[in-house]
């Protein structure tokens, strides 16, 4: 059977670090990048006698996520102990949720090659992170700063069928999480981690093939590469008559391959049982409804609104909404200048270009929406021309400040006074006899050259439209 006659079935387990000030079960800060073992206390170090206390904000964020993607919120859920020994785990059990998670069901829409598809979510539950093993030349250490950080685990149904779809799902999920202010989704800091379950089966076969679990992908791109590799690997094996072993495989990003981990060692019986130190989470309907009322606008709804209410083209809406901070910046600018399309043009071209060039996020730029709006107004009022405006934008981007002062300081105010311009026009006509002759002979583009000459004479301050009118009149 040829490789193209196989179908892949993929499910994702996504771990999301929630944006809380403190850890899941103690008051230690969740800040990243501190010295090892400084954000720790008896609770998150698993000291004798220490007890967990639930972080209510983490529960709210988990439920909020569930509400954003249409989960059923469990009015009664509980925490369980998941037992296994590992050096990075202070208590040698992880407080997690087993059979009664906070959120059930739910869905995320993705789009791949113009084709829309719903990926169903099985559940979302709340748990705590572990510490981080560090290996040195002749010894190992453990940093427990991350131990006890609130983690939300989202599990999808096995409905994803390609690496592209997995990638699209992660992007869509990240967008939602950022929109909901759930997580910083900073991949470098491990805010978002994803394990993948993957199997292949021949086209037409009902039952799923044997699955492998992929670990150690640190970026969305890594997930895409690992999954592409693994699907191809499995198809290779199966199409040659081999069998897939159920196992956990580690993605080696540098080598670009997945490698089997020793399977025996990871066959766990987690011996889940209810965490006796925590009370069940009981969420009254009124509470859930209150949180539902507080839900933010999601990307899809925002796109639709920008198209409907601000008259943006679909493409603009798509680009702007992809990054919540960009969309926020856009809306603020559009509101302040009253010209949505102009704001969109500036942001999609000049702003995104400059951001990419400097490797900056929009939150870090010096040019404030009020400044960009002011710039747009100056152009609209014909106070400055477009080339000057771009120059002003670059100054604002680099240094901040307000556009009117820059325009004044640089003497950029556009010259529309026909007296001055007529003098420039006469000079240009006199100095370029051949071009004038060409124009009169019917070569209309020659006029552009003359406009350029006048602009030069005006040191860029002339209003090109007015110059054109004057030249046309003079050359009639």
């Amino acid at each position, binding site marked *: 059977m040829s490789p193209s006659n196989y179908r892949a079935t993929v499910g994702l387990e996504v771990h999301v670090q929630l944006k809380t000030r403190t850890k899941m079960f103690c008051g230690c800060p969740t800040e990243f990048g501190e010295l090892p073992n400084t954000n720790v206390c*008896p609770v998150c*170090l*698993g*000291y*004798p*006698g*220490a*007890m*967990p*206390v*639930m972080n209510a904000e983490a529960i709210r964020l988990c439920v909020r996520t569930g509400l954003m993607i249409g989960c059923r919120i469990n009015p009664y859920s509980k925490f369980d*102990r998941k*037992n296994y*020994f*590992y*050096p990075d785990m*202070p*208590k*040698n*059990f992880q407080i997690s949720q087993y059979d009664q998670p906070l959120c059930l069901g739910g869905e995320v829409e993705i789009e791949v090659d113009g084709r829309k598809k719903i990926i169903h979510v099985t559940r979302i539950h709340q748990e705590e992170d572990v510490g981080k093993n560090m290996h040195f030349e002749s010894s190992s250490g*453990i940093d427990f700063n991350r131990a006890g950080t609130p983690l939300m685990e989202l599990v999808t149904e096995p409905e994803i069928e390609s690496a592209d779809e997995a990638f699209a799902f992660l992007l869509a999920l990240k967008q939602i999480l950022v929109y909901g202010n759930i997580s910083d989704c900073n991949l470098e800091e491990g805010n978002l981690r994803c394990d993948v379950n993957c199997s292949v089966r021949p086209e037409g076969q009902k039952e799923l093939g044997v699955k492998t679990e992929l670990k150690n992908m640190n970026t969305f791109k890594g997930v895409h590469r690992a999954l592409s590799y693994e699907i191809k690997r499995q198809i290779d094996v199966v199409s040659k008559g081999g069998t897939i072993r159920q196992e956990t495989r580690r993605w080696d990003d540098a080598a670009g391959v997945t490698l089997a981990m020793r399977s025996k060692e990871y066959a766990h*019986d987690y*011996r*889940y*049982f209810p965490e*006796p*130190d*925590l*009370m069940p989470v009981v969420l009254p309907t009124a509470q859930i409804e209150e949180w539902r009322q507080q839900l933010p606008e999601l990307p899809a709804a925002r796109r639709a609104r920008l198209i409907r209410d601000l008259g943006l083209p679909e493409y603009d809406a798509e680009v702007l909404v992809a990054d919540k901070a960009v969309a926020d910046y856009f809306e603020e600018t559009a509101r302040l200048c009253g010209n949505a399309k102009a704001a969109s043009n500036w942001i999609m071209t000049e702003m995104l270009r400059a951001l990419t060039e400097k490797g900056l996020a929009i939150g870090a730029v010096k040019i404030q929406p009020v400044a960009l709006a002011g710039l747009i107004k100056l152009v609209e009022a014909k106070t400055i021309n477009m080339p000057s405006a771009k120059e002003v934008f670059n100054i604002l981007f680099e240094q901040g400040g307000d556009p009117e002062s820059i325009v004044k300081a640089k003497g950029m105010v556009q010259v529309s006074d026909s007296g001055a311009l007529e003098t420039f026009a006469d000079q240009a006509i006199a100095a370029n006899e051949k071009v004038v002759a060409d124009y009169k002979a019917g070569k209309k583009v020659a006029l552009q050259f003359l406009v350029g000459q006048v602009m030069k004479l005006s040191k860029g301050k002339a209003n090109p439209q007015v110059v054109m009118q004057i030249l046309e009149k003079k050359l009639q």
Partner: protein
Amino acid sequence: MSDLHSLSLHQASSLLAGRQCSSEELVQALLKRIAAVDASVQAYVSLDAESALAQAREADRRRASGGSVDPLLGLPIAVKDVLNVDGQPCTCASRILEGYISPYDATCVARLRSRGAILLGRVNMDEFAMGSSTENSAFKVTRNPWKLDHVPGGSSGGSAAAVAADEALAALGTDTGGSIRQPAAFCGCVGLKPTYGRISRYGLTAFASSLDQVGPLTKTVQDASLLLRAMSGHDPMDSSSVDVPVPDYSLALRPDLKGMKLGLPKEYFVEGMDPQVESAVRAAVEQCRALGAEIVEVSLPHTRYAIAAYYVIATAEASANLARFDGVRYGKRVEGEDPIDMYGKTRAAGFGREVKRRIILGTYVLSSGYYDAYYLRAQKVRTLIRNDFLKAFETCDALLTPVAPTAAYRIGEKKDDPLQMYLGDIFTVTANLAGICGLSAPCGFTGGGLPIGLQILGPGFKEENILRVGHAYEQATEWRLKKPELKG
């Protein structure tokens, strides 16, 4: 004053208030007593005399500086080695915690400290509170002050022995299946297991989290009510501590039992129990009747399943609670070839037999395929037992039962027969499973001169009921006046 060590908390408190003695003298007297008799009783596992004296001098300064004074100010209290006290060891009588110094105070300890009580020293126990005789301590065998070749009971055997031998005015213990009440009965002192959630468990090294509870062992019921009030109340660090008001329990202490209805659960007077125990308890029941209580027979039909359910739930929780003792962050470590090897070696060397037995049992009952048959079923039994009590307390203010089927037994007598040892907990585990409160008060002696205890069980958060019964009974009898004869 030569016998300061033999005072109750209340007696000592009034002497301090009347400036008839200082806290420093009180601590000196106790240190002297400990020096004299602890070689035979073996109650203490660690004692920081300097720290105790410093705390005493501080208390004396506070008193001298005037102002309102807490009744606990300057009173020394011994602490079971399972409760964390900042800067002190907390071995849980286990090799695996040798060398560990606690970085924080348990909430109950902090509350006593803030009221000016002195944390005297740390007393012996069964390793990780697993046992009923204190023979499972990794460090020493504590002896019953009434008969030194007998066990003091357990697991709070050090607490009970210290109080009975006048080596402490009072002590803190913990009770997971009878570990306060049974040693109190064996040693002839008062032991109170409060309602689950009454006193914070934060800082109590967990054995079985859904059953553990901190409580006092004292010389009188009045003393127990004083310590109970000082330690009770909601603690934001313990989610299972309950936010219900803490009454002034002393107001409930009256000389009679008029208007009270006390139940005798027929399942608690069973064949096979020591007839001397039964007759002492029945005599106590008559005394309560004479004090004005109405006595009725009640039934707690699911009692016979309690031991089985208890040892499933307690060991399951323990198997997870004790997983943290792995040699990675604190305590004992035996190096190995890799982490898994190190865990194995550390835990093999660090835990004693009984602890290992319970970890294995608990791991087994939670294993995939067995969970429903054991753990889940035990939880169902637990609900039935709780319902039995709820029904009994619909008509009764408290229940009267023996604490244990026998008085203290000889050291070594049951050590190699864990099942026999477990069965001795039959009358006490039910209160932990149901989450209710229970009090053990002395109610007589065997012919051989060993104390016998009366158990008074009360509804959840109705400690005033059992304290009232215990106090009236205690005051009407003279058991508390008898002291063990110890050379020293």
